[in-house]
């Protein structure tokens, strides 16, 4: 272990420190400002989070490493609790951007927007997510997961007077705590077998005769961890909470939950499996990686298929997006399965595909949910049929929603096309052409229900056609930023962001 360098260690958790300070500031402002000014807390939170999102980019781990390679070591800082690398960096940026946009999106939502504690809880949850992105220790991983989840349980039930919201919170809590429990069990097994908690040292202890001859312990632990992650990313068959929670929770919470929590979970998932269960550890004559890769492929296929097929029958736009998000998790798991590629380059490309997908998904899904928020705040309805005539009520809103849905469906020039393309490419590269084919067929099924929503907005008529839907300033910003980002990521910005994703993925495979 290297000598402790405070400077570098502090830099590694700079965003987290910032988040704590921001949380305190919000708490203070909530007390200090009168009711009439509390709306401004949203701006404070959004600007603060957006600022923090720049920190990981400015203090890039690669740059710090070049300044003082010896003190930086392999990037395991705080006694091995967190790893300061490019992968943590890109995912931290994602969750911070998601949180910033969520704060703006909540601003005019009744019962949510004017309450300081809402933003406080969002910030705390974000803290958990940033820690998840960099966690390099079993204990850190679990603490980060819980720091993420517990605030989310509260957020889901934030509208206390609303039965659906309360139900949503309770369901999320029950499922979530059960999944966490199983996962914790898995983590404790790993600790029990090896006597170590650092992700990067576990593997070498698993690689012994004892485990090789008896596959049960290691595979059992793996299965339990998979359940935990499966829950977090809402993969089938751990998805049952998703539609109810998405539908019941206040819409900004749903939006936040669907992107940030998923992104952070994929970050930890990729790091965890690559580090703890590598191919080099042989269990029962097969590399450990083979097992979870196959598991990921299976989960991917059933998540995509089930998510998309059930989404076809939905009438509520939030439930539709919930099933769509299950399917999106399925696509992303394709990237996890593709980690079985033969070369390190291929493996990095697979992880990069996951990172890129999540990056574009943050903007895409927030765009779609922003429109849903505006619509339901103006009309009180969340059913798809009521979107009829949206293109006449507010053409820009309809166009924004269209771009969002097309991106989810993977149609250029929206970002989703590149996102899916990278994933399919990785799947083919790792020799799973069949998985890519299942993926493209699913993309077509998905396109059907996205197109149906678009059709309702443009074709169907409604009696309320001449009632316009107002869009206030903060929402103009949210819609503008997300729309531009979605188009940019689908065209000229795809190259730099993908390179960034590849760089961060490489850090995962560097020793």
């Amino acid at each position: 272990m290297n000598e402790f360098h405070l400077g570098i260690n502090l830099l590694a958790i700079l965003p987290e420190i910032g988040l704590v300070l921001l949380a305190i500031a919000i708490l203070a402002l909530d007390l200090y400002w009168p009711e009439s000014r509390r709306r401004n807390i949203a701006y404070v939170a959004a600007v603060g989070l957006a600022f923090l999102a720049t920190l990981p980019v400015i203090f890039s781990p690669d740059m710090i490493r070049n300044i003082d390679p010896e003190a930086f070591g392999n990037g395991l800082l705080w006694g091995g609790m967190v790893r300061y690398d490019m992968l943590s960096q890109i995912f931290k940026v994602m969750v911070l951007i998601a949180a910033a946009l969520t704060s703006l999106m909540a601003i005019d939502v009744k019962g949510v927007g004017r309450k300081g504690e809402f933003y406080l809880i969002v910030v705390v949850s974000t803290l958990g997510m940033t820690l998840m992105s960099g966690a390099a220790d079993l204990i850190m991983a679990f603490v980060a997961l819980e720091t993420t989840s517990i605030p989310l349980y509260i957020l889901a039930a934030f509208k206390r007077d609303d039965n659906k919201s309360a139900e949503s919170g309770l369901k999320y809590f029950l499922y979530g705590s059960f999944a966490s429990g199983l996962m914790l069990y898995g983590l404790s097994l790993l600790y029990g077998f090896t006597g170590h908690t650092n992700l990067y040292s576990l593997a070498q202890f698993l690689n012994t005769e004892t485990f090789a001859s008896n596959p049960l312990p290691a595979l059992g632990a793996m299965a339990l961890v998979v359940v935990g992650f499966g829950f977090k990313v809402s993969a089938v068959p751990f998805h049952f909470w998703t539609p109810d929670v998405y539908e019941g929770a206040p819409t900004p919470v749903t939006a936040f939950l669907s992107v940030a929590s998923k992104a952070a979970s994929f970050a930890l998932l990729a790091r965890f499996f690559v580090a703890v269960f590598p191919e080099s550890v042989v269990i029962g004559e097969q590399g450990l990686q083979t097992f979870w890769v196959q598991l990921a492929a299976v989960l991917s296929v059933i998540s995509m298929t089930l998510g998309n097929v059930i989404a076809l029958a939905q009438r509520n736009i939030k439930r539709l997006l919930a099933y769509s998000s299950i399917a999106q998790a399925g696509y992303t798991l394709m990237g996890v399965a593709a980690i079985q590629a033969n070369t390190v380059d291929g493996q990095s490309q697979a992880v990069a595909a996951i990172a890129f997908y999540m990056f574009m998904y943050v903007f895409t899904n927030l765009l779609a949910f922003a429109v849903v928020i505006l619509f339901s705040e103006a009309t009180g309805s969340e059913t798809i049929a009521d979107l009829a005539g949206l293109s006449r009520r507010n053409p820009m809103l309809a166009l924004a929603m269209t771009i969002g849905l097309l991106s989810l469906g993977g149609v250029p020039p929206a970002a989703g096309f590149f996102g899916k393309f990278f994933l399919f490419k990785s799947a083919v590269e790792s020799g799973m052409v069949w998985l890519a084919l299942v993926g493209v067929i699913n993309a077509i099924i998905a396109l059907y229900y996205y197109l149906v929503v678009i059709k309702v907005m443009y074709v169907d008529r409604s009696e309320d056609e001449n009632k316009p839907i107002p869009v206030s300033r903060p929402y103009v910003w949210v819609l503008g930023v997300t729309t531009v980002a979605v188009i940019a990521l689908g065209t000229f910005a795809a190259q730099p962001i993908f390179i960034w994703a590849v760089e961060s993925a490489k850090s995962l495979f560097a020793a």
Partner: protein
Amino acid sequence: MTDTFTFPILSVIIFVPIIAAVVMLFIDGSRRDLIRGIAITAAVIVLALSATVYFGYNSQVAAVDANQAAVTEVGGVGMATQLFADGLRYEENVPWIESLGISYHLGVDGLNAPMVLLTGMVTVAGVLISWRIDDRTREFMAFFMLLVAGVYGVFVAIDTFVLFFFYELAIFPMYLLIATWGWVKLRQYAAMKLTLYILIGSVIALVGVIAMVFTADAFFRGDGAQVFEAAKQSGILSQNAGTFSFNMTHLMLAGEAGAYNVLGYAGVDVLTFAKIWFPFIFIGFGVLAGVFPFHNWSPDGHVAAPTAVSMIHAGVLMKLGAYAALRMGVQLLPQGAEVHLPWIVFLTLINVVYGAFIAFRQRDFKYVIGFSSVSHMGLVSMGWASMNIIGMTGAGLQMFSHGAMTALFFGCVGMVYDRAHTRDIPSLGGFVKRMPWVAVAFIIGGLTSMGMPGLSGFIAEFPIFQGMWAASENVSLTIGSFTLTNYYSIIVVIAALGIVITAAYVLRVTTQVFFGDFKDELYPEVGDIAITDRIILILLGTPLIILGIYPTIMAPMLESGLKPVLALLGGG
């Protein structure tokens, strides 16, 4: 490639409509005339540039031919790719995603230059015929412009990824245009069917192309390393090219050198990559060209679409399918083409005859034209299947000829329907008295579609049959122990039957709609057409005649564009 700045004419052609669309979206929707003004300005600019590209390339055909002769003289592996790469003009090549070998690479050769011109013509015609659309004019024109941009992108893409990018880009605006502004009864069903059919075909082809890229990559790093180095030396590939690339030239070189012809694909001894993937890629794109049995979206789609969209769809988009099937299928996987086209030809035969027969049975004016497109596009695919210069050149001419002709047809139908408010053929009649322009234009189109000498249909269809006949000796189809030979000539005979049926339905429609008694009491307000409509008819009708009288304006160009493909197929 030169270092001096050249005007990026192809990019301008693609981006003018996109910019027009974005500008429109920021204009108040009630200022319809301004929006129409922007649309027609953009369309005219695009047409002017397209014509520049076409005639610019046409003036260089002699040079291209001379170069091709020189290259053919040398021969060797990479010759076909060399022919292809040398034939490209107006090239633009900017790296897009460098690590994946994706570049924004555009170019024009003898094959796509006519398509560029065709798209320009139909774009102008489409904007003009949509002049009177008042319901959300802004959105209509903006989506139409996006569609045009997508179509252009596909035609001029030299990078397979870029081709897919624009291909998918073109499909979506089409959905909205049909679903929103189409014929009320059918539009939602037809729009969705069309979109899903076309997308399924193309995404399966996309997976095939990704797999092809990996195959080529492995080949160039292994057995084909020498070919790769040699290609870099001779300038077919750029000096800094990697082995992993989506570039068409790159993939074509791999195919020519036999990368896709290695036995043992997917662990099966007798399979090669080309054998497995060719049908998926060729038919995947062929869906858009209406290849049987995946033609089913086409008549419904065309009938449901608003006139402008029918025009661009039948006129240009179906060509997109046929073009991409040739470029991505035959040109990249020639070994697959040799195996599979001999049976795919039967599908195209069904297209030709069955399409014509169904067209004959229709009562709805627009359905007649819709099925006639299926029939005529079958001839294009049949021309590809002939795999010789005569037949394929004919198919290329047919793409252009049918594009202009069917757009003209749909224009005529639209003009009649706008005034008569019905498309039921038996209840129409005598329209020549009120709409002489339309009647003349329709008859010109009709004669073209029958293959009347002196019009473009003849110089397109005749070579297709001739080419098929000539190919008959060389093609055989083996199913198990049974070998079928010399059957192309029989196919020609049967396909010619399709032309007879075509003549029958064209004459029937002409007689019933334009001649006979005019029912004054039913159609009191039918008058002659506006000046914009006349421009459309002239714009689309004239090329049919010019090409019919003077085929040299296009045929040599197509031949030069097809030579690389034929060099791969071992023919001449």
